[in-house]
């Protein structure tokens, strides 16, 4: 266990305007489960992309089993038995599980393929991963995210990888699926595979990882030993942010006002959600809890006009509004921060400034022409207020880190001056510091009387932030919990069982 299988020594990588990695070293032992922690932009992903051959380092060396290697392309990485599972999977959705597993190394029979044997092997692999008798002919696009992840891991096993890197694997998984994943990780470790694990979920890290390396601003901070699972979350947070974080969740001043700002009556959509009824008061933070796939995001999209509803009424300030499309909802004062910020929230090839203004272009233009001065002053006001870093309004969106991208989506909606804000998983995949900032922003909005709907899969977060929590199960609201009586156990129970 003491032999280093991988050594990355003094790695430096600079991008125009930022030094992403400054003399960073990282060592991985054989059979070790090693976590890398750090805030967004700390350099975790860059380090892994260097290992994966996506970027080439400006300086530094990589040793595998003590031998110096050059990793210039993703293929070099695979040949060195490194397998990386990125947050965005590398699967071809239109191909079956078997075809994905065998992509590039199909078993041949004459000029054709030996489908039978490939099928058998695929089934065996999945069985080894704990998925017995699964139909391997299913298209990947028809599989759940958890299964897709298993297929990715299956690919790594198939490549006979010695080093497996997992980037935020549990961000999209339900609790049950997460437990299954950790059981699988244990199996892989027992086989001598070394695993590098990147996650923002510190609870998981302290209870499972052998060592934790913390990065901050592209530099090594410390590597902690966790042999006896003795380190705690707060230690890591302190190292990540470089200061004590007094409280996880900012104090909220509650409004006494109970005026209903939004009322949803009998909202239904076939096969998705049924008879959804709830009220939201001014300045209230209303949480929506439930398992992945329970229909929470769909309900929000239904309210926002992004998903056609079959029946139901939406009342804003007691008046019925007809929402057919998102622009109707925006006019009614509703904003939606979608679940998947990359796919639904941002235009990566546009710059920060244009992204921020996307929902409110009319506000900035006179007879269709954008008034640059007005736009710039408002954009900079929000960049400053939300502390979007770096504060370069002309920088392309794709070059910002996850937390800053999320802040850009928030800025886009704050400019619209909404009265009801729906946040769908606003803190997914972003670091502790940025999370705290987002909670603070939510609180400030609530203080101003904005009604807030907060959808999250992290129950602790909902308990920390919300005034009231509704639980959704199979498209229906099944229970309501008030702040005074929040109980983790009860909420989980009503989310999971019939």
């Amino acid at each position, binding site marked *: 266990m003491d032999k280093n299988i991988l050594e990355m020594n003094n790695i430096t990588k600079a991008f125009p305007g930022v030094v992403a990695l400054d003399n960073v070293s990282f060592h991985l032992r054989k059979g070790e489960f090693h976590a890398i922690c750090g805030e967004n932009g700390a350099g975790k992903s860059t380090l892994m992309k260097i290992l994966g051959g996506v970027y080439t380092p400006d300086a530094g060396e990589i040793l595998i089993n003590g031998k110096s290697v050059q990793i210039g392309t993703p293929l070099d990485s695979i040949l060195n038995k490194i397998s990386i599972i990125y947050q965005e999977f590398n699967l071809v959705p239109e191909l079956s599980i078997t075809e994905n597993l065998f992509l590039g190394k199909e078993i041949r029979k004459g000029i054709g393929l030996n489908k039978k044997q490939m099928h058998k092997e695929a089934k065996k692999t999945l069985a080894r991963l704990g998925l017995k008798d699964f139909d391997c002919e299913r298209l990947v696009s028809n599989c759940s995210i958890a299964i897709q992840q298993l297929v990715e891991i299956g690919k790594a096993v198939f490549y006979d990888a010695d080093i497996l890197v997992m980037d935020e694997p549990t961000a999209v998984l339900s609790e049950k699926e997460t437990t299954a994943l950790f059981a699988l990780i244990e199996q892989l470790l027992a086989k001598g595979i070394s695993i590098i694990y990147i996650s923002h979920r510190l609870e998981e890290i302290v209870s499972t990882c052998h060592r934790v390396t913390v990065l901050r601003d592209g530099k090594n901070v410390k590597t902690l030993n966790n042999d006896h699972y003795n380190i705690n979350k707060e230690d890591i947070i302190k190292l990540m942010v470089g200061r004590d974080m007094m409280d996880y969740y900012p104090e909220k001043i509650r409004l006494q006002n109970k005026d209903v700002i939004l009322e949803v009556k009998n909202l239904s959509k076939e096969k998705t959600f049924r008879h959804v009824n709830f009220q939201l008061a001014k300045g209230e933070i209303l949480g929506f809890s439930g398992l992945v796939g329970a229909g929470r995001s769909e309900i929000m999209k239904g309210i926002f006009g992004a998903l056609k509803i079959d029946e139901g009424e939406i009342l804003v300030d007691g008046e019925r509004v007809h929402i057919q499309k998102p622009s109707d909802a925006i006019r009614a004062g509703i904003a939606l921060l*979608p679940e998947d910020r990359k796919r639904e929230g941002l235009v990566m090839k546009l710059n920060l400034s244009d992204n921020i203004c*996307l929902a409110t*272009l009319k506000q900035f233009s006179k007879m269709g022409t954008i008034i640059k001065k007005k736009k710039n002053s408002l954009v900079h006001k929000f960049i400053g207020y939300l502390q979007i870093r770096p504060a370069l309004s002309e920088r392309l969106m794709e070059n910002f880190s996850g937390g800053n991208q999320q802040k850009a989506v928030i800025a886009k909606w704050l400019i619209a001056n909404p009265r009801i804000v729906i946040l769908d998983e606003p803190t997914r995949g972003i670091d502790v510091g940025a999370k705290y900032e987002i909670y603070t922003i939510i609180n400030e909005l609530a203080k101003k009387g904005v009604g807030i709907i907060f959808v999250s899969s992290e129950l602790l977060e909902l308990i920390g932030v919300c005034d009231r929590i509704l639980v959704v199960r199979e498209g229906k609201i099944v229970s309501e919990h008030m702040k005074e009586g929040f109980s983790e156990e009860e909420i989980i129970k009503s989310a999971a069982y019939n």
Partner: protein
Amino acid sequence: MLKFISPGIAKDPNETISERIRRIAFGRRESGLFLLLAGICIIMIFLKPDTFFTSENMFNIFRQVSVVAIIAVGQTFIMVSGGIDLSIGYNLGLCGIVIAKFIEAGFDPISSILGGIIVGAFVGFCNGLVITKLRLPPFIATLGMANIARGIIYVLTKGYSISINDPFILYLGSGNVGLIPAMAILMGIILMLGMYQLDKTAFGTRVKAIGGNELAAKLSGISVSKNKIAVYTMAGILAAVGGIITIGRQYSANPGAGANFEMDSIAATIVGGTSLAGGQGTVLGTLLGSLLLTVIKNALILLSVNMYWQTVAVGVIIIIVCTIDVFTRRK
């Protein structure tokens, strides 16, 4: 030395003057194209000192580039929105025929031109409608429309050209304002409007957003169909303008006039740096792309290269420029 990096390199407030010069000179694809263009011109001045850099030849180049550049502006907007228009060429031909028919029937030139523009706009509008409401991919929708337009051209003309002798239309296609060809001025105005529209208006930003991420644009309250229909309609109007100039230049409305213009406009747009995937592109780049392709054709004519080989050369240029682009972007 040449660097083709698409626009959008962030401004760093602390940059030094030399960095600033470098960013402006090499940071944008337009500057690379401009240098390439200038290089070819300089070589030609040495090779053909008495024929290339003459006012006559320069006007020739402007005449040749005008029509392509005008319709390529429409193509640029469409490609930035994530689509493509294969019907632009035959739409151009159809509008020319319609105008000629109107004039033949005794209408005054202004109403005839208006008639042509309405037809062009209608064709573009139908493209937009089929793409947004029937949800056909732009490639298929406009391929169908190209055949429809081509068919109507032959139904209207039975294959014969219609000669044009209306002085106003001839003036637009062949006349000069002072020393400058009238059509070059028209091209200048359209390019300026196009640049302004793509970079300075809410419409331009919406088109880029739709091409960059249609779902995000929709969830930001942008009406995707309305804007797409507008883009295709606009391209249709520009095709009609190209049609007017073409018949004025050829002194006749020729049933085959529009052929290949769709490919020329796509080539100019792509060489100019517009992404086939949508979301990125500039009108200035498209102008430089059109100029580059035209100047190369012109240079090959002056160097007495066989006409068929000229076409081969243009194809090679498209592939080379786009290859350089792909390689520099990968870094």
